[in-house]
């Protein structure tokens, strides 16, 4: 139970079961193999769950195929969707076209190599790729290392529970929709906060809006998102 009422924005708290460390040292050499016949995209959709999970469950299933079968066709589809977005993110962060191209390729290659570290009960594929791209941005564009929190130890690795996977993927769909439905001014600021490597003060300088306005708009946006995630 969370004691502080302001912390109600926890799409990833439910179904959270083991650490999901992106840049931590990979100590899990043994890959887990899912039981035969597990098809993440189609299996046992719980009653009441909407059919439109975006393509989230498809991406999850692609990640499993990449991890278990080095499936190049699945990778190609993931690449088509995410590589241009990652490249756009890097350009917005200040990379020139060729550096952004190179980094986006590296980010996608990392998705392949670290496929066994992706935990669909903890994050959407988009979130996972975002964190890899963000870390690459800090590494390459800012030439800094990014301190990561200490890994939690959660017991033996095992295949995530399908209900947890569904719940997390569905929650990220709800979050995506809530962001899309934000008032224009608020949505723009959330986008700027993530795309563009600007602090809130720098956004204030750029837009000519007072810093207080920026902060209160972002606060309002987060309140809406938290409300949507209840």
């Amino acid at each position, binding site marked *: 139970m969370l004691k*502080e009422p302001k*912390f109600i*924005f*926890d799409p*990833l708290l439910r179904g959270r079961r083991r650490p999901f460390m992106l840049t931590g040292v*990979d100590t899990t050499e043994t890959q887990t193999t899912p039981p035969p016949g597990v098809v993440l995209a189609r299996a046992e959709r719980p009653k009441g769950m909407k059919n439109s999970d975006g393509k989230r469950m498809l991406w999850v299933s692609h990640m499993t195929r990449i991890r278990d079968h080095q499936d190049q066709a699945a*990778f*190609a589809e993931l*690449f*088509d969707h995410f*590589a*241009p*977005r990652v*490249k*756009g*993110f890097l*350009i917005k*962060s200040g990379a020139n*076209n060729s550096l*952004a*191209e190179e980094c*986006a*390729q*590296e980010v996608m*290659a*990392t998705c392949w*190599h670290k496929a066994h570290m992706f935990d669909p009960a903890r*994050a*959407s594929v*988009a*979130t*996972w*790729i*975002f*964190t890899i791209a*963000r870390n690459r*941005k*800090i590494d390459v564009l*800012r030439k*800094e*290392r*990014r*301190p990561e*929190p*200490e*890994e939690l130890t959660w017991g033996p690795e095992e295949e995530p529970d399908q209900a947890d996977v569904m719940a997390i993927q569905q929650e*990220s769909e709800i*979050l*995506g929709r809530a*962001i899309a439905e934000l008032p224009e001014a608020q949505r723009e600021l*959330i*986008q700027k*906060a*993530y795309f563009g*490597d600007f*602090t809130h003060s720098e956004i204030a300088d750029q837009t000519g809006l007072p810093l207080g306005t920026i*902060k209160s708009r*972002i*606060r309002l946006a987060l309140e809406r*998102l938290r409300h949507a995630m209840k």
Partner: protein
Amino acid sequence: MKMAHEIKHHLTDDILMGYAAGTLPEAFNLMVAAHLSLCDTCRAQAESFDAVGGEVLNESMSNSAAMTSDSLAATMALIADGAMNSEAAVEQTADPVLPKPLRNYVGGSLDDVNWRGVGMGVKQAILPTSSGASARLLFIPAGAAMPDHGHRGVEMTMVLKGAFQDEDGYFARGDVEIADSDLHHTPVADIHEDCICLAVTDAPLTFEGLLPKIVQRFARI
């Protein structure tokens, strides 16, 4: 990790969002990583902000940039070359005071911290981070407070060992005091035992600014 003390003073949305977006200076990222290592509440929040980033990325059709025509083939070639820069696993002993991100910056445990005395029994160790903000460990012997001169920039102080108290409350292991230039403390600080803190600030390192305010308050500097 068992928490003896329930953390009451957390990181703000601003800071957690900046950590997720990757827009904070390295010293601030270190503070966040150290706090998340001790605080499950903020860790869950930080993951939620990662999720916002994921959705912004996913919906960023208008900001996407076309890849070159041979980019998939080039990426497959990269993949065939093997994983990049997989860092070697460094075996680290656990440390009851320093969480792992801090152990990485001192190169070991609390015993490896390169303390330098700054007077009145106060010691500090500046950690190697990029410019733009600075991070240091502070060792503050039990002491009394003195009037605060106000802050420049943002200063965050997290207790790693011991505790201190001021008008904002009681700060023990994992608690973060966040002060910005708007905030003027009237110090009622008191330490009951030697205290070790992580302090980060984006204030320029002028002569008077060389020591964080928290030390100035405790050590009568």
